């Protein structure tokens, strides 16, 4: 059992909007087989533990219900490792311009 997340914490909730099998008729087969999911962040209304159904207040003041999935959720996107296929391009094109007297 994890510590309850405090009231007023910045959290994320998750909800199924359309279950698999109830997707719009025009979506392709692979998408039909998975639900339409929603994730929204806001401030937690009452203390709760991860996995519980909770209410949040979003930054526009809307009250939304869903499963508590994260608190103070991190922005995990970044760059990752340099890409070898890109890292020599600069040297190659500079060499071409060096021949034409444009770069040192």
């Amino acid at each position, binding site marked *: 059992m994890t510590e309850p997340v405090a009231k007023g914490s910045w959290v994320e909730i998750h909800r199924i909007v*359309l279950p698999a099998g109830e997707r719009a008729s025009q979506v392709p087969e692979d*998408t039909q087989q998975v639900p*339409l999911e929603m994730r929204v962040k806001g401030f937690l209304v009452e203390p709760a533990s991860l996995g519980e159904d909770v209410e949040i207040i979003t*930054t526009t003041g809307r009250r939304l219900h869903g499963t508590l999935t994260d608190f103070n959720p991190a922005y995990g996107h970044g760059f990752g490792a340099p890409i070898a296929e*890109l890292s020599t391009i600069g040297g190659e*094109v500079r060499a071409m311009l060096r021949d034409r007297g444009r770069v040192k």
Partner: protein
Amino acid sequence: MTDSPGYQEIMAQRADIMKGSARIDYAQYATGKLAFDYERLLADTGYDLTTTREIQSRTAVGNTPLVELENITELARAVAKPGRGARIFVKDEAANPSGSFKDRRASLSVHAAARHGFTGVVAATSGNYGAAVASQAAKAGLRCIVVQEAFDSQGIAQPEIAEKTRACEGYGAEVIRLSVGPELFYVFLQVLKETGYFNASLYTPYSILGIETLGYELALQIQEQAGAFPDVVIATHAGGGNVTGTARGLHKAGATESTMIAASVDLSGLHMASDQDFNRKSFTTGHTGFSMPFTSWPDRADVPRNAARALRYMDRFVSVSQGEVFYITQVLAELEGLQRGPAGNTSLAAAFAIAQELDREQIVVVQETEYTGAGKHPIAQLNLAKNMGIEILRGDPEDNIPGRRIVIPEHPSQITVREVELDHVRRSYLRHAMELLPAGEGLDQIDLEFLATETRTSQTWVQEVIDELP
């Protein structure tokens, strides 16, 4: 497979929700069975070019630098035939407040929302436009909700969209992140209905009129810097707004002879509504997955009449490969000191090839850049691609297969454009248009005129194509 009752109920209210949320009664612009008065739809907003420029200047939107890419021009000349290699300029739209030309689109939408007394705005977008609307809403004191298609069924976020989530939340917006599927529109309608907020659609007249300043500015700037209007202007093309607004602005500045070229990243073979393909695209916009359907039928948008009607304005439509765009993005950084893109650099990749078709004294303008950063960068996209099992290699761009293999050119001479046959797109447009004609009814004269204008052809050609339809 059946649509759920809740889904059907909201979708049935679509027209009413739309009408109230954009304050435009689109029905009043109908002039025929298919025809509508496009110019009056735009003019009735009250935003002429002078007014738009004044509104945009108040939020530091526009007046972005036009930069000559002398080193990239020289590189193009190094691989071009003797005497060829036009001067390449780029309009550095990353200098806008939220980092892209989308601020121009958002500025009038948010202005209109405030003017009509709305307390908030909603936008359905996974791209730069969300950050632009959020930024403009913050300045105008309006609340903002952005609805994104953001992650696949494995919970893997597309990194560029993750960055857009962060940017929107940074401006105080509420971001609704959804998994893959066109039912995003259903959630969008629900939110519009619940909140009564303004629909800051990418496809309203506001959103298109806001871009006219881009074309107008670049025409004046190139006149001042090079003493002539551009021979060619290239726009990265997705939903059609960029091409439409830029071309209209060029015309208003008097640059009526400039060739308008639309450029998209080729994503053929990938399905835009497929959960499995979602994270195999490596591009979130500027690609054929949007541009082909939207050019051949603009009224598939989230408003009844799309104000972005690219087929009216493009002289030529080309595609480039994913690897070519990543290559030129790296070249832009290392030869010009500009880290931008990547999606906006689609038109730069095309410009690099097209400049080689032209003489050295001619001028090509790439009409936008966009900011770059965490997630929104070739390194982030290529790392995701590798994790998805997509092969990355240096080689001949002709071997690039979207979703399976990204081929980074080995040499700048390998960058080329592939022509999209415009007559094919026009025929597809007419096929869609005729599907809307009630059974047993014929076209009126005004409809024929409209379809000829829409396709930039003649009434004779339109009639011939229609007669050939099954």
